[in-house]
């Protein structure tokens, strides 16, 4: 598993690149609680990498470590060949990492368009003063450019009809899509999705799966996702990390993981004798 340099070719013929992020012996403790225990794995460029596991397995904590929100108690995170230290959120964004949240975190009173525009923030050059100057400082022109990028994303995710609708009025499934749109607006290299399908019906799940695949295909974005729905995970992802009680119990292609006895035990339960 540790041939870091070359990458591999997926079943459907996509070329996956080299390692862009590596987690080395990560342990995360909150006081006496061990959320993550000595986990190592890597993320390769252009792949869809899933983290699965039963409730409380430490998946979301792991995602927070990847995003830099949590600093591991022990272990190292290597990103693009550099060891990563503590970071502020804007620094994370500048590294090209964007995420969505398990419990939607959008601005309810703002329109879909404005919400997605906030995703462009890290790419905006004009400061407060320049924006106050508006037209003659070039801020208007800059906004046009950002709007153009945002419109492409709106088109991509097929949400033209709700462009001007306040987010608070949207149904759950669409909010999730808007959140994805906002994350995409930051033009991330690495996109973290925390349970993108939670609470969706079959049709919404199908739509979301298609969008995730399309994002990966169209923009070449590396995607790390946490998901409960095993069917979705197995269909979408190239490689899967399985966690249980904070430990890694499996890592590999969906097929490998499916046939891993530890994984089967964790999911189906095991007889205690």
């Amino acid at each position, binding site marked *: 598993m540790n041939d870091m340099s070359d990458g591999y070719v997926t079943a459907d013929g996509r070329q996956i690149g080299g390692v862009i992020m590596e987690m080395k012996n990560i342990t995360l403790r909150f006081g006496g609680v061990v959320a993550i225990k000595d986990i190592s794995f890597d993320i390769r460029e252009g792949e869809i990498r899933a983290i699965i596991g039963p409730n409380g397995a430490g998946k979301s904590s792991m995602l927070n470590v990847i995003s830099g929100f949590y600093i591991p108690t022990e272990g190292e995170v290597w990103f693009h060949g550099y060891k990563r230290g503590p970071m502020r959120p804007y620094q994370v964004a500048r590294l090209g990492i964007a995420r969505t949240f398990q419990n939607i975190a959008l601005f309810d009173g703002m329109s879909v368009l404005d919400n997605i525009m906030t995703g462009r923030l890290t790419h905006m050059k004009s400061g407060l003063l320049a924006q106050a100057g508006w037209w003659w400082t070039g801020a208007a022109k800059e906004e046009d450019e950002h709007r153009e990028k945002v419109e492409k994303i709106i088109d991509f995710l097929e949400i033209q009809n709700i462009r001007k609708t306040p987010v608070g009025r949207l149904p759950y499934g669409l909010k999730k899509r808007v959140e994805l749109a906002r994350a995409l607006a930051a033009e991330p290299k690495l996109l973290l999705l925390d349970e993108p399908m939670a609470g969706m019906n079959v049709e919404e799940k199908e739509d979301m799966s298609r969008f995730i695949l399309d994002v990966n295909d*169209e923009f070449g974005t590396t995607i790390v996702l946490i998901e409960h729905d095993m069917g979705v995970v197995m269909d979408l992802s190239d490689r899967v990390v399985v966690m249980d009680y904070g430990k890694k119990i499996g890592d590999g292609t969906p097929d490998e993981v499916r046939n891993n006895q530890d994984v089967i035990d964790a999911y189906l339960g095991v007889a205690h004798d």
Partner: protein
Amino acid sequence: MADAVAKGQAPAQSIPALLARNVARYGGYPAYREKEFGIWQSWTWAQAAEEIRAMALGFLSLGVERGDHVAIIGRNRPMHYWSMVAAQMCGAIPVPLYQDAAAEEMAYVMEHCGARFVVCGDQEQVDKIVEIEDRIHAIKHVMYTDKRGMRKYDHSRMNALEDVQAEGRAGHSRYESELDKRIAELTYDSTCVMLYTSGTTGKPKGVVLSNRNIIETAKASSEFDHLNHNDEVLAYLPMAWVGDFIFSIGQAMWAGFTVNCPESPETMMTDLREIGPTYFFAPPRVFENQLTSVMIRMEDAGRLKKWLFDRYMAVAREVGPDILDGKAVSFGKRMSYVLGNLFVYGPLKNTLGFSRIRVGYTAGEAIGPEIFSFYRSLGINLKQLYGQTEASVFITQQPDGEVRADTVGVPSPGVEVKIGENGEVYYRSPGTFVEYYKNAESTASTKDPEGWVATGDAGFFEEDTGHLRIIDRAKDVGKMADGRLFAPKYVENKLKFYPSILEAVVFGAGKDRCTAFINIDLTAVGNWAERNNISYASYQELAGHPRVYEMIREHVEEVNASIAEDPMLSGCQVHRFLILHKELDADDGEMTRTRKVRRNVIGEKFADLIEALYDGRDEIYTETEVTYEDGRKGSIKATLKIADAKVASAKTMAEAAE
């Protein structure tokens, strides 16, 4: 030849020739607009002609031959309209198909016409073609407009449409002379388009329409309503439907007006408001939905707004239609109407996107008199027309100043109409179709040697006005057990005029009394439920709610009372009814793609329910198979209640005459 056409010295004999004429006449005027990335993109006639030509050259490079069929499956986009004209330029025949058709339905049509080339809107359509490709060996090349998600497909026989254009531009010197030769070969009698009829019965039939059919019809109808190059239409109806072909290609090419394509089907209402078309066509359903949403929003409006609305709508109802028809109206009323226009009608029309409408048409189904007069009272010149695919749309239409809800108007210019002995309507016109493709038998049974075509509809001319009135489908008009006349559509239309009833299917042929299935309108009934504190979790639960049944019963009884007025049809009163647990759906084959009910399919599928309507039971348990959008099947189980409705005693002929 082309120069003479452009200068207006010779009549254009084909759509490509009209295009050349428009470039010469209106070169700098907008021909097409499409909203994309939040902005209206536009193409002038000159630019559009260049795009179309590049596409035609690209088609030649792919090997499109004379007489080939090119299937087009996608939503209304300039690219798709261009591909139809480009196909014509190559001597090929465009065949637009319904994009929401399932792969199976598509397979039949593709096989029937032997389409060698397919233009798909997006990945979804390409997937359907890939699915049926093994069975249909004729397909040589697939093109698509939207590149999204297409990267992983095998591109040995597949291309993006814009790449085909690029190929055409690159190889123009190789194909230019061949293309010009083919354009010059087109005559008035070459096939312009082939359209498949929705087919309420049996398999779809391919209606072949010539350049003569389309251009003559477009010319006559454009002149009838004085359409010109400053007009604007919104192209949002299915491209496979003859109406869209006539409006967005025939009349647009003839009159040179602008075709605007919405951003997506869901944004149609917003786009309508932004464009404000001057010429508009919609089936009654669209007008109904708009009115329902206006009424729902007015229910929630503040007291002052509601008062203003009610006050001035009353004025509009009283004098609006007369003012529109140019009849005499007192000065005081006129002033009220002016004020109303300032406070209510103007803003309302603006919200609906009807501020600039000069001519609006509705057709396809009967429109409710209240709905019809609502729009007319606002000063919107909404009219009715009657037509069908085989006639290149127009058979009859209403002239300005002679507009009524219950007729479909007088014969269109150039059209002859007669009523057969059995009451069936026949017509003959320059727009009459050439033939059903590969179906001489049906052609012969529909079109007689003298060119008269049977419409399949029963109707009559009103003696004093000369307007045509349509009663029902001729074959649906039947007899009840005791010999009284049975006209289901007549009753269904009356029922459907209630906002809470979406669809109704009436049974009774050969029986002693009539019964009905009702489909509730989820938007209207849902809103009503909200206001009346009725909670429900699903469509099924709402449909089965006792108070919904009570409301529908009232509607049915009102309809019964109104039917009883007409001695000829009084036997059609509905004695018992039930509210269906699912919406009738084209995906389940219960309706056509143009949303007409398929009686025989429904009769077979719900045989158990019909039986229960007649054997006196109060409720029945049933399981129904449903098809999801992606073609998977599932089933819905439900116990349906059956309700009785009071019938009014029929008036005798003598009483009615008094």
